[in-house]
């Protein structure tokens, strides 16, 4: 692969990751959000793939395939089933409305660029330049968790955070050691499964899908 093609494909794939994050903030329909998440998972895998190909790193390519399978297919599918079972699968009234959320996303992206200056300075490569995108994705994910009322939206937010971090990890270090990377992914996967199970229990036992109804425990 030529240098410029490598660079531009990496840029495009990373860009998609961030755009998908913004899309989750923009759309209200939960199914659309889950779809955006799936696209993001695939894009993340593609980033790993490009890096793996670029560095001729077989392990990384394998990881990329795993990522595509897990984050692009399995997890969205899991979430999709919850969404399908929910009669009102819309984020009807997020705590912060959509235009303001988008403005917030923009501000967070700026912040990500500002905060990662030192990291970018350390890695003067194409991949290094793209690290802020990962940071921005993470921050947007965090933001989504804080402003979205539906359980599924919050899970998606968590996955956005995770994807953002994974993007940073891939871009900055071409992945931390495999054992750690696998452990991390497995843990996140488990966390999502747990959340999913909890969401299902809350729905089935107490009819709760809107997290704002869960305010029994307070001071």
């Amino acid at each position, binding site marked *: 692969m030529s240098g410029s093609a490598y660079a531009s494909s990496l840029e495009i794939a990373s860009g998609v990751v961030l755009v998908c994050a913004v899309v989750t903030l923009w759309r209200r329909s939960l199914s659309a959000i889950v779809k955006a998440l799936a696209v993001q998972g695939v894009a993340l895998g593609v980033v790993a793939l490009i890096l793996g190909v670029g560095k001729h790193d077989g392990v990384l390519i394998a990881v990329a395939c795993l990522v595509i399978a897990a984050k692009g297919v399995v997890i969205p599918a899991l979430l999709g089933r919850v969404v399908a079972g929910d009669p009102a699968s819309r984020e009807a009234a997020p705590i912060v409305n959509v235009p303001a959320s988008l403005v917030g996303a923009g501000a967070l992206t700026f912040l990500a660029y500002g905060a990662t200056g030192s*990291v970018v300075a*350390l890695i003067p490569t194409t991949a290094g330049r793209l690290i802020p995108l990962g940071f921005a994705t993470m921050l947007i994910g965090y933001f989504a968790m804080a402003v979205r009322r539906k359980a599924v939206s919050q899970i998606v937010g968590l996955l956005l955070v995770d994807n953002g*971090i994974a993007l940073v990890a891939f871009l900055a*270090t071409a992945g*931390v050691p495999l054992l*750690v990377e696998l452990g*991390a992914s497995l843990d996140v996967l488990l966390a999502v499964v*747990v959340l999913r199970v909890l969401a299902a229990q809350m729905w089935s036992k107490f009819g709760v899908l809107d997290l704002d109804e869960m305010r029994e425990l307070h*001071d």
Partner: protein
Amino acid sequence: MLAIVVLAVPFAAGIASAVVPWRREIGWLCTATIGIVLVCGIGLAARVVHGPPITAFGGALRVDALSAFMVIVIGAIGVLATWQSVRYLSLEIAAGRSSRRHASLYSALVQGFVTAMLLAVLAGNVGVMWVAVEATTIITTFLVGYRQTRGSLEASWKYIAICSVGIAMAFLGTVLVYLAALHVGHHLHASLDWTSLMAVSHHLDPGVMRLAFALLVLGYGTKVGLAPMHSWLPDAHSQAPAPVSALMSGVLLTVAFYALLRFKAIADGALGVAFPRALLVAAGLLSLVVAASLLLTQRDYKRMLAYHSVEHMGLLALGAAAGTPLAIAAVLLHILGHGLAKGVLFLTSGEILHTEGTTEIAQVKALLARRPALGGIFGFGLVALLGLPPFSLFVSELNMVRAETQVGLGWAAAISLACMAVIFGAVMSHGRHMLFGSGPDGERVHKTPAIVTVPLIGGLVGCAALGVVAWPLDSLLRAAAQVVAL
């Protein structure tokens, strides 16, 4: 070898209890395995206190004085918690709220939880440690939700949602530390080992390390329960079964704090003391203020204990901020003392919940008159937690304040003392309502079975002994402090 035993024994017991329907004997077996952990921890400590660290699996497991100390902490509180679990499960099954199958799941999860914590403190690699800490989150989520009530589900949701994000930040921080270490030109695999990170800490890129350390404080700080990332803590600790609360509050928080201590030592090398100190002081003071404010009008005794944990984590953060050998030694003693006292209190609160059927402070009255043993233990537990001698928390708090003042953090120490005084007043007032007074006329005095009181009294006596007798723990504390102190 001992290190492997420490991990393998409770894990094996966990597997065993997962496949066999729960019986009392299984419960006692689990307690015994944690007892073995405690004994092995003491053995490990004896070996590493004056000798070099022990490693296993090619450095994947590494035991220095600090790790050995943490193993002792986990073992000691683990014994208390698993001992009480037996009674908890029997009562739950007897009351029809749980089945033997369900109970065996609980038992296995607790064993897994303890194993994960042990792995976290024994791991020689920051990545493995992260995985272990995250594993504790996932396991304990099930334990928090074990009772399957609306409240417990809500608590587990909040717990896992908030902690997952937090721990993700910690992962990002770890990645950045790795990046910085790579850049120093270190070998790829060793770059996440404590020893190699400590060795190169002075050469790590300060810009990246600042970002990394900030993320690590936020991330692990969430698990530690430092304000304002503490908000999951009162919910989870109050909803979990009492033995689990005891483990979470007594040990899990400090295991996460252990991670922070390790990373702080690296950050000190890379950044100098000022930045890590500023972050930890800010987090510590905020925790103290938040804990003090929310304890004032607290209405639920389990939540009261939970906020008390926030306070103590704030104190630990301040102590770590000082960072001198004295400060760290005091921090470690505080970890053990707090673990014991908080463990005992949560277990007692479980017993109170069982007998009184409520967690509302206002509904529990005259415990000392009606249930002298239980009330006495709860009262003395509070005394221990409020930092009065002879309990060890007094000594550790005093020495933390001393260390903080020595490094110019006297003002922070003063604020912490003021917050502690407010907390003292608040807790005293809540305790007064729960413990003092006379019960309804004609109510007989309830005896609490010795099987319940023995470990609790043992825990308190241990906590008191730690605060009086210096030998032999003193040398271990000093050795452990040397590992991460300035």
